[in-house]
């Protein structure tokens, strides 16, 4: 986009925004529009020079200052914002529909009515189910809603949680700090009293959750750490694991955050990822049997072969052969 193509829409939004929010501190306005205070002041200087033909005092828009607060007047002609462009309407409508894909996170009815109102206001820029969402049936909406409620009210939860890496159910109390989705799956991060550390929980693995009466008790420093952490919290201390994947196992690179992907040349890939838990790698590698293999570290590769050997001999026993 050229300068004017970026700049003019901002001014056409800034004018009605200021009319709707008179006497707002300059810093707040700049933050709202994602620009510096200096840029905002330049915008206001420009607005002040514009208006109706004639360009006399009664024709120009008026910028009024009270210390560091700003108001606008005499801008009736552009007092309404420009209608939504197709990409703006798409961005909001598609994200709202994605919210519907995680039932329980927000009030479904409110999302649906907001969608209807937005589509009407977008005047045909987006319509019907051009962009649709197939709802996730894996995660229990009650579990999602319970955690969202605990987060909003700042209360501790009791959680029965399945740890797939060890294939066991655990009981723990957690102080929720943040809740997010990644690739459509809802997660929450909290201070786990079982391990006395920050943990991330995938809500489809929550077997049961109840809100407790205790308020959350998380020091600000811990809270900040929970926000700074990425989704899978890869840690430099985690082991780097290299997998050699046939074309039919390429999906691993799509599903897991990988550090490095090298094309093998035949459609297969070599991927490197960080794994906190050897159990997790062992289970992944067993699942990839015949389609992918751990190539590094060698001890983990050997470990996987041992686990596969144990499974094989168990089958020999029940099948009564060799």
């Amino acid at each position, binding site marked *: 986009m050229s300068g004017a193509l970026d700049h003019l829409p901002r001014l056409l939004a800034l004018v009605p925004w200021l009319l709707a929010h008179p006497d707002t501190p300059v810093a707040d306005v700049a933050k709202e*529009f994602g620009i510096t205070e200096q840029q905002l002041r330049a915008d206001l200087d420009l607005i002040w020079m514009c208006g109706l*033909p004639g360009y006399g005092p009664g024709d120009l828009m008026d910028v009024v200052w009270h210390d560091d607060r700003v108001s606008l007047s005499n801008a009736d002609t552009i007092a*309404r914002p420009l209608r939504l462009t197709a990409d703006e309407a798409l961005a909001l409508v598609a994200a709202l529909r994605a919210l519907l894909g995680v039932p329980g996170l927000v*009030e479904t009815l*409110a999302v649906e009515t907001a969608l209807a109102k937005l589509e009407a206001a977008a005047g045909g820029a987006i319509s019907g189910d*051009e962009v649709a969402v197939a709802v996730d049936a894996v995660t229990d909406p009650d579990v999602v809603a319970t955690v969202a409620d605990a987060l909003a009210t700042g209360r501790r939860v009791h959680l029965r949680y399945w740890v797939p890496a060890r294939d066991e159910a655990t009981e723990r109390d957690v102080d929720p700090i943040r*809740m997010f989705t990644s690739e459509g799956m809802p997660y929450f991060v909290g201070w786990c009293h079982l391990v006395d550390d920050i943990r991330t929980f995938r809500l489809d693995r929550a077997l049961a959750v109840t809100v407790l009466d205790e308020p959350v008790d998380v020091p600000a420093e811990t809270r900040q750490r929970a926000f700074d952490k990425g989704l899978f919290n890869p840690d430099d201390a985690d082991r780097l694991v290299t997998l050699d994947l046939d074309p039919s196992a*390429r999906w691993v690179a799509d599903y897991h955050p990988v550090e490095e992907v090298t094309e093998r040349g035949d459609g297969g890939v070599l991927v490197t990822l960080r794994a906190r838990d050897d159990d997790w790698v062992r289970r992944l590698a067993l699942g990839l*049997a015949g389609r992918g293999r751990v190539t590094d570290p060698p001890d983990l590769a050997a470990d996987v072969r041992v686990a596969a050997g144990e499974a094989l001999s168990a089958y020999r026993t029940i099948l009564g052969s060799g």
Partner: protein
Amino acid sequence: MAARRTERLLNLVICLLHTRSYLTADRIRELVAGYDEAPTDEAYKRMFERDKEDLRDLGIPLETGTNSASDDEPGYRIARRDYALPDITLAPAEAAAVGLAARMWSSASMSAAATRALRKLEAAGVEVAPLPEGLQPQVEASGSAFPVLAEAVHDGRRVTFDYRGAGDAEPVARTVEPWGVVWWHGRWYLVGLDTDKSATRVFRLSRIVGEPKPVGRAGVVTRPEGTDLRTLVSSYDAASPASVAVVRVRHGKGLGLRRRAVNVSAGPPGWDVVEVTYPDTGRLTDQVLPYGADVLVLEPPEAVDAVVSRLRSLVEDTS
């Protein structure tokens, strides 16, 4: 320089919104501040043409017409009802949902578009209360394909793109009549008619290589009556469970399978016998293998063979 141009465009928009009658190019040159900089008629013409184009690119509806039948020269104006965002009133819960939606995009361009949209709504009087900082749902755009495909669906235009299917070594060029874009388990999928194969196909956006290109005229694509996009996508991802498998699961293990069990009964000491539904042998094998010696398939026999043969290839794999 750029600021002068923005100033001229802003004055032009205000003037054309204010006028009821159509204004000819000559009249606009006289009225709107900034055009006096054009030294010649020719320079003015170029300047005005470019400005008109910019306004249209920004979605500002410029009308052309004459004020009376006797006028031969067309004039310009902007109709307020076409320009302005229609009135919109959102209840607090609706506004909160919209505010949350506006910060969900992880891609920069979609995120910027959502923020611009939210500012317009706020400029129209919608109040979005501050959201809990800990609530952070996300939606990914899977590269640049999403907005291009959504627009193609809206316009009813064919698209072409290079696509790398699950087992493809190299991307293959596809031509598709797009019917819809569907979000399913955190991924965007395109549903449409693959014109080369003359068959309905589902494409995962993250497997599209490069940017899709719209081809041909708009309005040529129509979705067949009764097409259910969501079902097409969800059945692409997981065939409906049809058969029942019998597996032996060690006590306290195999929770993922136990959660989906249709029946659990006692097995040999230390084991349960669990029945689960499965869509096909391949998927059942994939689900059972990660548990190693803790979960053993008893039935169907073809799944037992598949698990054993894949375990064997792992043990013998020395590469």
